[in-house]
């Protein structure tokens, strides 16, 4: 029988702790597949965040470094400056990157650190139980916005890709989604480009991946995918914000 699909060597055999329907698993797989296809697993050092993907260090089949909340880009900076020939990436959620870690991500981009960031935006704090994030949508209920987020109280949701694309050092910025097969394929392409940008030494690259959190959104996995499509896509438009010419 012909083998049509196999588990990527980019992931370990450890069983994910993620909730049913959570799209972290898909995003992990895409990153693992890209690292394998680029044949850089043996050169790669990943930096794990604090949040739902805190155990990412057990899942990626390469050297890993667990950072404090929001500090992954600083940790990655330290690693990359010491080991410029290695591939260094951070994997961060929206609480980690868009809230407590805004200084670290902005300045890693600003310095043009030659690292790749996978930014998983599911518009909520998952691991701590569903609190409001800077990315939570207007009207969206969370455990710390029980009446729904309002602009007057909490401002408008933060558009990280748009913000970072104003920074010269951020040479690759793209927002993708994993709510259906077609978009998963596009997401993988973007992730691969982001790593290629690093391999070419161009500068900082980030892929924002819109993701679901059925558990804390209070939905079934299918409802979650539909909610992402209907609510997140209009506010967080997909697309490439910056690409260096060489990898276009």
């Amino acid at each position: 029988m012909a083998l049509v699909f196999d588990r990527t060597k980019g992931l370990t055999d450890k069983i994910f702790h993620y909730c049913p329907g959570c799209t972290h698993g898909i995003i992990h797989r895409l990153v693992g597949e890209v690292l394998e296809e680029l044949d850089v697993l043996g050169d790669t050092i990943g930096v794990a965040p604090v949040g739902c993907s805190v155990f990412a260090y057990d899942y990626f089949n390469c050297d890993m470094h667990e950072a404090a909340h929001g500090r992954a880009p600083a940790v990655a900076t330290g690693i990359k400056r010491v080991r410029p020939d290695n591939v260094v990436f951070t994997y961060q959620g929206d609480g980690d990157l868009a809230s407590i870690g805004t200084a670290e991500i902005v300045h890693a981009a600003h310095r043009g650190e030659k690292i790749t960031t996978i930014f998983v935006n599911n518009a909520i704090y998952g691991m701590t139980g569903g609190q409001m994030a800077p990315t939570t949508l207007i009207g969206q209920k969370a455990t710390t916005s029980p009446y729904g987020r309002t602009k007057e109280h909490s401002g408008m949701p933060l558009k990280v890709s748009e913000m970072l694309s104003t920074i010269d050092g951020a040479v690759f910025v793209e927002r993708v989604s994993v709510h259906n097969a077609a978009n998963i394929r596009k997401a993988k392409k973007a992730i691969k480009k982001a790593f290629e940008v690093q391999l070419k030494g161009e500068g900082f690259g980030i892929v924002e991946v819109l993701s679901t959190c059925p558990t804390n959104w209070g939905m079934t996995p299918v409802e979650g995918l539909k909610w992402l499509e209907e609510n997140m896509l209009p506010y967080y438009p997909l697309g490439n914000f910056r690409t260096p010419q060489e990898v276009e």
Partner: protein
Amino acid sequence: MAKVLMKGNEAIGAAAIKAGCKYFFGYPITPQNELPEFMSRELPKVDGCFVQAESEVAAINMVYGAAGAGVRVMTSSSSPGIALKQEGISYIAGAELPCVIVNIVRGGPGLGGIQPAQSDYYQATRGGGNGDYRHVVYAPATIQETVDLVMESFDVADQYRIPVMVIGDGMIGQMMEPVEFNEPKRRELPSKEWATDGTKGEREPNIINSLFIDPEELEVHVNERLEKKHAIITEKEVRFESYNVEDADVVCVAYGTTSRIVKNAIAKCEEEGLKVGLIRPITLWPFPDKAFEAITDKTKGILTVEMSTGQMIDDVKIAMNGRKPVYFHGRTGGMIPNPDDIVAEIKKIVGGEK
């Protein structure tokens, strides 16, 4: 090697580079700025790398990353900046990584002032970071000793996989003294096979981590790894200077530049026929409890002198365990103790006025 006249902050940088440190991540804050400035100038010449981070928090996390990648790395700051670094120091200690942190202390609390102080003894020895951790703290009294200890700090950090802090007050950073650079005594240093330098497909992935979600595992990590290591360091790495402690009328305790002022006060007392001893802790952690065993019944009291409102005195009291009264004299806020005031305090203890 001939002695050279160097400012403390620059001498620290030169010592670090001589010890093989090629990576420095820092943030500007007075009175330690000459150190990152020196490193930004000198590290490119040795194929090293200096990065001015966006914050103290980022700087210590860059150190965390670099230390994990297996190199000798340093950061420096002053009191309020060290407060910001405490998160990272806790992670580095938890993940058992070696690094050297220089703290040129200024007055506090809050923004405080920029003059020399010793009001961060608690911060250095108790730690502002979370959890059951310790790190070595060296408190040099001269620029020469600073240089020697900075060089040795990298070895100690590597030997025990632990952060080492070198703490000096603003005077250590700003003062110029003649120094020479001597190799520290050779230590057996373990190889860094735990470092994140890429598996090359030849080994299992290395993971740098301080998370142990299972409480049983975390207790084992803290007790079996960290606490055992702390006990060995306490046994082997305590360092202090002791002068005329046995049968002294009064024994003074002081560290860093304050100890030099106390030595002047002791000389004045000796001219008047008083026998005054000095214990000068060189390691603040581990604290030299054993130095206090030499104090005899003849001694009337202990005088702790600090540029603070009294922080090290807690450790002095623990070491004395109630055997003799422990008194305190200190100035704070960047004010410096005066030898005559210290002499007056010593005489009060001798005369039974205290």
